[in-house]
């Protein structure tokens, strides 16, 4: 077969793509009307399970750009067992994550020793005002509904714990 000039070959490629686009449709996903579902592990937004949080401040300290604000006070909780002493617990007053600063690195979720923070693949929370990107603990708690189950691991992976 004689060698086609590269120019013609290139024209063939674009023509082929046109035919394929007309036949199979474009590769575009038109966002507000159609949505791609992000993978389960996608780091969309951080959800907070308030009951688990002990205000230990580990997440706030390990955040590379210090976008987590925690305030808490100590209070007495009813004893675990009947007749026991009342426990002293940290009550969370404020748990804010400033998504205008957050780098979505996931270190806070990783360091949390009490499983209070989770990643959710939800991503539609942009705001017209930058101040509204500061999510307080109620809003962070609402994201908990969108947190998926951790995915099964690939063959050969070691089971955790």
């Amino acid at each position: 077969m004689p060698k086609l000039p590269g120019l013609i070959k290139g024209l063939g490629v674009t023509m082929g793509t046109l035919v394929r686009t007309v036949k199979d449709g474009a590769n575009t996903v038109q966002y507000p009307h159609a949505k791609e579902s992000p993978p389960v592990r996608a780091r969309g937004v951080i959800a907070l399970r308030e009951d688990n949080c002990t205000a230990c401040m580990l997440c706030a300290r390990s955040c590379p750009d210090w976008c987590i604000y925690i305030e808490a006070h100590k209070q007495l909780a009813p004893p675990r067992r009947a007749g026991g002493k009342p426990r002293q617990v940290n009550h969370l007053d404020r748990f804010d994550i400033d998504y205008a600063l957050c780098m979505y690195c996931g270190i806070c979720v990783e360091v949390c020793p009490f499983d209070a923070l989770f990643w959710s693949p939800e991503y539609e929370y942009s705001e017209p005002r930058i101040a509204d990107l500061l999510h307080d603990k109620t809003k962070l708690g609402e994201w908990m509904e969108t947190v998926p189950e951790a995915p099964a691991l690939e063959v050969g992976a070691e089971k955790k714990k």
Partner: protein
Amino acid sequence: MIAMLPVPAVDPVLDTESWWWQPLAIVGLKVLVVFIIGLVGTMFMVWFERKIVAGMQNRIGPDKAGPFGLLQTLADGIKLFFKEDLIPERSDRFVFKLAPFLAFVPAFLIWSVIPLGGDFTDGRDGTVEWFGQITRVQLADPPVGVLLVLALSSIAVYGVMLAGWSSGSKYPLLGSVRASAQMISYEAALGLSLAAVLMAAGTLSTSGIVAAQDQLTDWHLLSTGVVPFVVFLIAMTAELNRPPFDLVEAEQEIVGGFHTEYSSIRFALFFLAEFMNVISMSALLVTLFLGGPQPLLIGSFDLFAVLGPFGGTAWLLLKVFLFLYVYVWFRATLPRLRYDQLMDLGWKVLIPVALGWFLLLAALQLGRDNDLSQVGYVTLVIVCLVVLGLGYLLFTAAISVARRNRDREGAAY
């Protein structure tokens, strides 16, 4: 052939005894139609280009404004119209304001001499009868139609050139220098390839050229259909600043070139002019080489016979459409040439080829005119070929000498 044409070739409608409302109405109607075709055609051309290029890139393209996004251009135009009109501090204000019109008006005026249709069924010559007047479907039919086109496209160069120069900025200046060099040198190739067509047709009037091409055998496929056609196509692409010759407005190199500093409606005028030029020059190409609105008969079957007198327009649209598609296709595929490569192509390939072919045709025509004998004719051809060969040798020698001198001087730093 000339004798067949109506004597005042300007327009048969003006050649009447009775000057009443009909000629005026016809001319007014034509102006209106040409104006609307120009604008609407441009609008659809922009849409068409965006849609096809999108397809070639696996995208959707405009599809929100109007059905299939057809009104996208209109929306963009309105947006541009309401944008702030910026005039740079260091610009030459008058020229800066003038330049878009210099580009835009000629693009419109070219439409006036292009035959837009006509009745070619059963071997008619394309004239139609409106309001009892015989007329052509063409705004004006001056005997120098093709020259008018050349003149107008030369004026359009000024638009681009002055736009870049008057912006008072460096990138537009580079663009304007490129524009003047590129367009002027390709104008030469364009004119030379045109000359071959004019010689074959024996007339300068566009309607005359179309009338001379009433059958496929009269398209002069051998004499004008190959060499001048290809030269014209390439030169025209360069003239229009279409890829792969869009150096004048290369975004990646000189940031939009001559229209870098333009905004708002002035930019829109350049934009419109460019796309309008694409359509009008494609129409000119079809007129000159492919019979314009003449039907392309397969046997005696006319594809658009059902349309009656509008069949000619349909044929013209079909042919123009083909070229528009080719332009869009090029745009989607080809990278841009470099400035010096472009000049090389223009001066060392296109102009010599067009000139040589023109001389050959001229010699043959001369032989035909003088009724040479068979032997004389063959001798003439041989002499021509020898002269062309000599010319080619001289030409290559000149190029190689120039190259050696340049290397010796170390001009390449």
